[in-house]
């Protein structure tokens, strides 16, 4: 590589700036999937199950098919190939075949000339069901006398309604408890909740003029959709083009493959016309794949001065009706505890069960907000028991930068201590904790999250992200990447990284994204992977492009390429600013010299990120982001209403490539977390009925609930991140939830060990306290379940477990 230096400071990186694609958003020009209006489009709709659990005896579609205006009717047997996002969970059909497993599961589809006709046709489809008893709780799912949701013949489930289990021990945990002066033991419940992106999912599919199938979808994962369409439709991937349209919010809710996507594609092939399916808001609640309800038990041993000697953690996940990402979700509830605290001995046992409810999956923080809530509240309780303040207790146990955890996770840059110090100082925590007037309180918590999952969803040795650059003769640079921008700003990130290297302005670049025909691979916008992985790929592609250009300019000017820099739209000679060429001239020199100016870069996670045990593939990442949060609240003891007055959030994101967008991710995370801790719940009534599948009953905080947020960006400049950057956008959600719960304890003296912390919960806890009780509300027992024998793993040599 020539003398160019990434991060030399051309000004694009680190500068707060609006998005490069904001024009479409503020003018209404951005095209979301439902905005596509192709000529001759037919409208498809899905018939959904009214039963939580039933056998399908028969489906009669004759009357629907005969209705004038109906173009096609599909049932499950028309799409017999099973699929699932994870190779280990191939348990879904696009339309249910033998059984329905939740209220809202799609069983048939129609395509018709207009929505009214489609609705009328759906009403004419007769499905004969044989009702089965439903299983809707974790306890019932673990009860061997309950009916099976997935029969053994279908290959899912280990026994009873168990989907997956984990049982791991790192170091000798019993020995650790024997060394403890204080053992803290708690049980928690985190209710499920959902993404509720404002845009309902939509897909348009059509045969192109080349006869190939094109699918436009509101998806975070065009590549996985491409793979699964090829599998289920049984046509070569080369015959399918997937384009992720503008995505109106994802948060993990559009990282799975959905029935409507496959059905639209199938119907486009069947009818020969463009087909559109747009979900209603109710449908979106059934599509779900959101936060798992998790019951948790945690036991931690501490020395008298507050050092952790061992931790044992159990989680019970209510997975809903299908696997989805659940095998990963389960492990995420156990794996990242060790990434914030130096835990020398750690045991994790977890089980994910099937229930007759919409499938759960990944939502912002995937599997980690639930245990983070548990252990951060648990630590506060331990601090109180030990007579140590919560900040000191955490400081005594923080994970060390550039080390390994006891469960073999590689920690690199780590600004957790800086984050903690920053929020404690900014919030005057020490002057307020336990000292605020009655009804007011302050709470603290920390967190850590991945900068991208260390491994792809399906095993392979290929890059996880590739970026291609193409230059035109006028000097214009186009960036090609499959990363789908779902609002998080990945398009702007790509433009910023490339512009920084080339000495250009991000807004001057064109960015083509998320099109399987045009763009090279990126696995998708999930697990906070795009900045780290696509960012590194873009960096490499840009460096290669610059190298070609500098060599051409060097040859033209007769100077050493090492003396050239790209700055402000020019290639200049260091120490001789008068000598140089404009960017456009440089581009033409390079083209004349070596032909087409097209470069590419790629990124693959480093080898050796994971330990050697079953489950080790979930949790590793090239770099963890770190957070610390303080929340201050005012509680109304009569009504139980909790008002969050202010949130302070410090986030070690390595490097803020664009601080304005980074802060946007933090503020958005705070909003989503406040919804989760105070009001949002994907709850169910009898028979697996959703408690309220609408934006009226499902309580997203409005602008009136949003407190001021002080965002503090901590830059640790990760050695492997692009310009030192790590993730932002998921990690910031994690600590908010326990910080609020801890603040409510500080305000009222109650202990709410379940989420959401609703006004009625607060009133119940206060009433208990007033009667001389403990003021605790939360789960009191665990289901009767025997975990598999522990798989024991030796801790790595540079982990806290090695010293013990």
């Amino acid at each position, binding site marked *: 590589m020539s003398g160019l230096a990434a991060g030399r400071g051309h000004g694009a990186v680190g500068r707060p700036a*609006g*998005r490069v694609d*904001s*024009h*479409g*958003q*503020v*003018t*209404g*020009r*951005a*095209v*979301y999937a*439902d*905005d596509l*209006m192709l000529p001759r489009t037919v409208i498809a709709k899905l018939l959904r199950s009214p039963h939580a659990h039933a056998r399908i005896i028969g489906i009669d579609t004759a009357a629907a098919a005969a209705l004038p205006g109906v173009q096609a009717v599909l049932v499950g047997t028309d799409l017999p190939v099973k699929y699932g996002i994870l190779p280990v969970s191939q348990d879904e059909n696009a339309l249910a075949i033998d059984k329905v497993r939740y209220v809202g599961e799609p069983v048939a589809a129609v395509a018709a000339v207009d929505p009214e006709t489609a609705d009328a046709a759906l009403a004419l489809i007769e499905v004969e069901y044989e009702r089965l008893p439903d299983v809707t709780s974790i306890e019932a799912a673990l009860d061997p006398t309950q009916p099976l949701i997935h029969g053994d013949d279908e290959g899912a489930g280990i026994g009873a309604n168990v989907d997956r289990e984990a049982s791991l021990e790192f170091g000798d945990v019993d020995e650790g408890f024997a060394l403890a002066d204080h053992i803290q033991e708690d049980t928690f419940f985190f209710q499920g909740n959902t*993404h*509720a*992106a*404002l*845009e*309902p999912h939509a897909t348009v599919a059509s045969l192109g003029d080349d006869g190939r199938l094109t699918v436009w979808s509101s998806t975070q994962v065009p590549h996985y959709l491409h793979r699964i369409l090829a599998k289920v439709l049984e046509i070569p991937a080369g015959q399918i083009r997937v384009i992720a349209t*503008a*995505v*109106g*919010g*994802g*948060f993990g809710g559009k990282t799975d493959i959905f029935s409507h996507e496959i059905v639209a594609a199938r119907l486009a092939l069947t009818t020969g016309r463009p087909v559109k399916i747009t979900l*209603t*808001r109710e449908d979106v609640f059934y599509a779900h794949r959101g936060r798992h309800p998790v019951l948790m038990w945690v036991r931690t041993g501490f020395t008298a001065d507050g050092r952790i000697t061992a931790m044992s953690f159990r989680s019970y996940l209510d997975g809903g009706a299908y696997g989805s990402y659940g095998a990963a979700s389960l492990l995420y509830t156990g794996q990242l505890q060790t990434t914030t605290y130096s835990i020398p001995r750690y045991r994790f046992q977890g089980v994910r069960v099937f229930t007759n409810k919409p499938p759960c999956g990944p939502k912002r923080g995937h599997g980690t907000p639930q245990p983070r809530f548990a252990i951060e509240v648990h630590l506060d309780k331990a601090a109180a028991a030990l007579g140590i303040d919560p900040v000191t207790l955490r400081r005594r146990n923080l994970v060390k930068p550039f080390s390994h955890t006891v469960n073999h996770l590689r920690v690199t840059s780590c600004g957790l201590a800086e984050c903690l110090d920053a929020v404690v100082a900014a919030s005057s925590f020490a002057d307020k904790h336990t000292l605020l007037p009655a009804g007011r309180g302050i709470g603290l918590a920390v967190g850590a999250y991945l900068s991208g999952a260390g491994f792809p969803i399906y095993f392979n040795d290929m890059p996880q992200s590739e970026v291609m650059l193409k230059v035109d003769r006028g000097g214009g640079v186009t960036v090609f990447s499959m990363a789908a921008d*779902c*609002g*998080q*700003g990945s398009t702007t990130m790509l433009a910023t990284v490339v512009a920084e290297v080339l000495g250009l302005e991000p807004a001057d670049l064109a960015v083509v994204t998320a099109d399987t025909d045009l763009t090279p691979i990126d696995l998708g916008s999930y697990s906070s992977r795009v900045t780290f992985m696509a960012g590194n790929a873009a960096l490499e592609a840009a460096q290669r492009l610059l190298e070609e250009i500098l060599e051409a300019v060097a040859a033209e000017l007769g100077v050493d390429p090492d003396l050239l820099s790209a700055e402000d739209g020019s290639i200049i000679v260091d120490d001789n600013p008068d000598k140089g060429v404009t960017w456009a001239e440089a581009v033409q020199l390079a083209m004349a010299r070596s032909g087409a100016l097209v470069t590419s870069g790629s990124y693959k996670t480093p080898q050796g990120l994971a330990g050697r045990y079953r489950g080790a593939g979930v949790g590793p990442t090239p770099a963890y982001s770190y957070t610390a949060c303080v929340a201050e609240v005012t509680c109304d003891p009569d009504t139980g209403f909790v008002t969050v007055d202010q949130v302070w959030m410090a986030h070690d994101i390595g490097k803020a490539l664009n601080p*304005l*967008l980074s*802060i*946007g991710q933090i*503020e*958005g*995370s*705070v*909003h*989503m977390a406040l919804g989760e801790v105070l009001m949002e719940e994907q709850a169910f009534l009898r028979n697996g009925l959703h408690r309220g599948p*609408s*934006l*009226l009953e499902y309580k*997203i905080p*409005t*602008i*009136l609930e*949003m407190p*001021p*947020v002080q965002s503090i960006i901590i830059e640790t400049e990760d050695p492997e991140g692009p310009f030192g950057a790590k993730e932002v956008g998921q990690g910031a959600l994690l600590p908010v939830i326990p910080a609020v719960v801890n603040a409510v304890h500080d305000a009222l003296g109650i202990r709410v060990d379940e989420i959401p912390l609703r006004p009625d919960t607060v009133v119940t806890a206060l009433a208990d306290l007033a009667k001389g009780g403990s003021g605790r509300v939360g789960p009191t027992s665990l289901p009767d379940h025997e975990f598999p024998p522990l798989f024991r793993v030796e801790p790595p040599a540079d982990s806290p477990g090695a010293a013990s």
Partner: protein
Amino acid sequence: MRVNGEPQELLVRPHRTLLEVLREDLGLTGTKHGCELGECGACTVLIDGKPQLSCLTLPAQVVGREVTTIEGVADGGTLHALQESFGALNAAQCGYCTPGMIVTAAALLEREPDPSLDQIRHALGGNMCRCTGYLKILEAVQLAAAQRVTAP
């Protein structure tokens, strides 16, 4: 009715909503829908200058009235101050609530050129956003107000 200043004579089925007419008959897809039941504010348009929910409005209710959508907020190629400030401050992330937010805020600025933070919060109380946490939206409305007040 007039839509974004242009007269429109339309024959539509009476039970289509204004939302459907705008998007499907007039191609004005800038107006979004998040619930179709009046709960999220994504479909907000201005009817005679006042923010209303197009998903709850029948075409017969807007006969002879002026409808303004996000496509009608800019002055030709010149963006409205709110469009500029939403872009500059990253007040739009996924952008899906943005058209409804901007037209609602535009109506507020017409009524109250220099609104307080509280007035902005109350005016936008019916517009849900899932990405931004609203804080940059508040700042963007304030910035646009300041720019309009100082503009010649």
